[in-house]
């Protein structure tokens, strides 16, 4: 009986000691793959453009447009074409792991422009799909952007 009390006591003590030192414990499941932080940094170029669901990529030269997204949270656009923002500014996502929204804030602007986007993997590369209406609301465009290597 004494033995049992002793044993129980030591187990309880150990448990206490363990919880007291939780900073040393490893809670993660070693078989679990952590969701990667989605990186948007880099230079994005237009791969395809649709207007009201019709592909117009071949109808105009979209190849020079470049969206530079810096890892420092700043962006700028070269060879501007209609986009959700025009002037330089800062960008951020709503969630580093499961982002649904990209926000662009032009320098000096009072509020940011938030865009919903898709981030599919195509041929092993992340594509950025943004839907926008820079002109009439009835005209809906989809920009598919691809990151360049530089």
């Amino acid at each position, binding site marked *: 009986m004494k033995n049992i009390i002793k044993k129980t006591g030591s187990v309880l003590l150990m448990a206490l000691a363990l919880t007291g030192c939780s900073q040393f414990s490893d809670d993660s499941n070693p078989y679990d793959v952590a969701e990667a932080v989605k990186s948007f940094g880099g230079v994005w170029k237009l791969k395809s*453009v649709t*207007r*009201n669901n019709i592909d*117009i990529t071949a*109808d*105009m030269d979209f190849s020079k447009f470049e969206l530079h997204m810096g890892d420092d949270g700043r962006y700028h656009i070269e060879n*501007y*074409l*209609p986009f959700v923002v*025009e002037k330089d500014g800062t960008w951020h996502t709503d969630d580093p792991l499961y982002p649904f929204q990209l926000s662009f804030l032009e320098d000096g602007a009072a509020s940011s422009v938030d865009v919903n986007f898709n981030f599919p993997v195509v041929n092993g590369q992340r594509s950025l799909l943004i839907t926008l209406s*820079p*002109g*009439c*609301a*009835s*005209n809906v*465009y989809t920009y598919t952007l691809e990151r360049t290597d530089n």
Partner: protein
Amino acid sequence: MKKKMFFKHITYVFILATAVALSAADCVFIDRYDIMQTDEEGRQLNSVKAGSPMTFSVVGHLEPRTTDNNGVTSKLVFAMLAPKDWDVAHQAKVTYKTGYHDDPEEELSMSVIPESQLPKNGEGRTWAQCLTSDYGVGPNVLDDMEWIVFQTDKTWVVRNNEDKPFYIFVRTRAGQRNLKCKLGFFINHTDDGFSGGTDHRKVVFANDCFEVTGGKGMTIDFCNRHFNRLSPLTALQNDYVTISYQADVDPSVSSNPLAATDEIYLQGKAVTVSGKTYDAPAIGAQTLMRRQSNLGRSFSLTIWPAGFFNVPTDEIIDHIDYYFSNADGSAIVNQSTDDKVQLGASDGDDTPFNLKLECE
């Protein structure tokens, strides 16, 4: 002997096929339609003022041929092809009268079919998608039209040989844009649900153009092909606008000076709301229009107006005046050229095509 057996089999197959065809033949018919509107002076016109109320009607009948003693249980489906500018889905009140109802004079209601309710034989497409893929925009030459699909709120049981008429009324309102188009009407029923063949479904397009006048902008002509064509029909300076020259509208060089030219350039100017003008780039690579295919004679150029005319970002383009030209500018096609072909005459020779930049 073998031959005899073959014929016997063929006869069976034939009789069976006929029986199946007969049992399934619940035919629907459109007998007539009426697009004429009565104006304030009591005149019958195929035109209305922008924003005015309008009533269209379609009369048809059913000839149900079914071997099922319980008859066919179904809802009547009605669709109308109309300009998107009219927003028929939200503006229209659609009713019908039918001989199948106890009171054949009572007007009963129809409602827009929700997108989630797919036609039984539509292969996963919506009603509007089925109609668009089978009939497009009918005889109209521009795309900005839509099929709006309604069904009777009441489900009907229709028995064999009970041939009865139906009368459909669409009470709606014209949009604000000036336009001319050919309206279309379609009849089917939910139990058939856009199956193959034409026994169960009928479509009819009005012969006459229906016109909206006294509204916004230049008249958009869905009825006739013109030398110029725009896509989309409404745009602002930060849209991408495709401007086309349709040379085959008139292949004669006497009335179409660019009929035999293979290098076509877009020329013109943007006029801002403050009255400043910005010229299109000179004749060259930037303004060369792309031939759509080697077979047709249609040339297009897609532009971002603000960039193409190099308009500063703080200025707003009110409209664009444009025309088509050959390489040395000695032959052009403009609104005056088009008017001479379409109307037989024009005011002068140098009116450019006009594109007003505004939304609906």
